[in-house]
């Protein structure tokens, strides 16, 4: 019984997610891309770099990268905490 409920819920979720994916704008043809067109056009002038992705990662969205570095640091601290040697 419980298994069937879970299965039904899973199927509902699957159907809705697939519906969402199918209703997206067609693959390879973004409708709105103001931000990205701006990045492609102006990152060379503003961030003085050829690699637009790097310009976004470290300049336009550098704060996200700081958060990402924090995530990595947090995970390393967490692993060190979990796998520490206990003297008791």
């Amino acid at each position, binding site marked *: 019984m419980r298994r069937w409920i879970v299965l039904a819920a899973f199927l509902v979720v699957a159907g809705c997610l697939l519906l969402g994916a199918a209703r997206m704008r067609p693959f390879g043809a973004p409708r709105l*891309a103001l931000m990205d067109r701006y990045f492609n056009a102006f990152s060379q002038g503003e961030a003085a770099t050829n690699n637009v992705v790097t310009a976004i990662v470290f300049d336009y969205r550098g704060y996200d990268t700081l958060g990402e570095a*924090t*995530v990595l640091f947090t995970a390393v601290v967490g692993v060190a905490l979990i796998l520490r040697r206990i003297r008791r």
Partner: protein
Amino acid sequence: MNLTVHAPILAIAVPLLGAFALPLWGKLGRSLRDLWLLLVAAATAALVALVAVQVYTTGIQVYTLGAAWPRDTLAPGGFPIRIILAVDALGAFMGLIATLVALVGFAYAARYLAEEEGKTLALTLGTLLWAGMLGMAFTGDLFNLFVFFEVTSIAACGLVGYRTWTSRGPEAAFKTMVLYTVGGLFFLLAIALLYGEYGALNLAHLARLLRGSTVDRVALALLLGGLLMKVGAVPVHMWAPDAYGEAPAHGVVLLVANTQVSLYALFRILFTLYGGLSDPGVGWLVVGMGALTLLVASLMAVVQMDLGRLVAFGAVSQIGFMLLGVGVGLTTVASRPGYGLLALRGGIFHMLNDALAIGLLFLAVGAVERAAGGRNLGSLGGLGHNLKWTSGFFFLGALALAGIPPLNGFASKLMIYQGSFLLSPILSALAILASILLLAVFVRAFQGAFLGPRLGKPDPVPVPMLIAMGALALGVLFLGLFPDLVVRHLVTPAADALWTGREVYLQAVLGR
């Protein structure tokens, strides 16, 4: 440099810098480490207070990262491209709660954590969790919200797994981590859907662009699913008692604040991002989940024999009160009757009250466990003879949480009762029932653990732990005796930020 303009980002960057450097100081010596932590904590608290003062006096603070000037939110062409911090009254309020809880937690941890290597790492994780909460509260960017969501998730789970000498700590941490990660991935999938449709990530910009299409609704459902899990609404609350029960006490208070900041993220998404699409179904969903949460969790608390788990279920039920209050506000935000705003205020005020009261209870449980060496209510008893202060604090916290006048929980619960009564009397009846159940639960816990004849000789509770608990107890008493001050000066602007503040928020970021 002009500190007041840069305060929002400094409030996040300073604790991050402090956390990155903390293990280095820890290698040099414990007094250096403690000094560094004290400095960082004081600086961060001052900066958060500065942000709050600015927000409450002059309105929304906007800060564009990496632009030539902080207020320079828009690129040529009139759309935001950089990450923007947008702190409104609700964000500042959440920042204050996180800061308060973090300071108390650090003061408590000074003597609570015994072992040195683990202590440095646990303090680092605590600082990171604090910084992550501030990041979540201050950000105005959807993807950035996700990143800090993950920071808080990982730091919280690391803290939950602190007790590696038992198998229960890692078990709780593993389960919590899996659920948090699934929730985070739902969040990320929703971001991908929204980005794919609109090519924007800024909350305000997205809010202007959303049209209510199928994809938008799928994204909304994914965001809701992930965040409802993180805040611990029944029936996806099951990680919460495990995690609250097993984490060290100074971590639990941060975990509770973390669920509240996640609640803030939920409200931000429902009111600001999706506020343009008036959808009563979602409001009723939040109300229903809130009612279910407060009822089920308080019933579950009745039969718990582990003191930590008992209080943990109490904490889950308080989340139900906040969901109920804000959900009533959400169902009525389109027609704006007065009781909707009242319930909204009650829900937001209850966040602060809950942070104080439940924090007090968890810290007292930590003290009991440290003193008596166990938490099973069947074997505890008579601790009140030796732990006079701790038992007093536990009693105060329990009464405040159960909503007994004149303590702080009553004031906010009264607002929730009145507001939800006018929406549907059944809701407020359920809420009152849950409060009564909680009172019974906590009286039973208090009697079982603290009253009765002496059983054994517990260790004394160190002074820093008592000071931390005393600070929270003072807060509980103060908010109980002067609720109008807080409601008028802190809570009402925060509630207005959700109630009518959507346009103000979008104007502040987009200028149109």
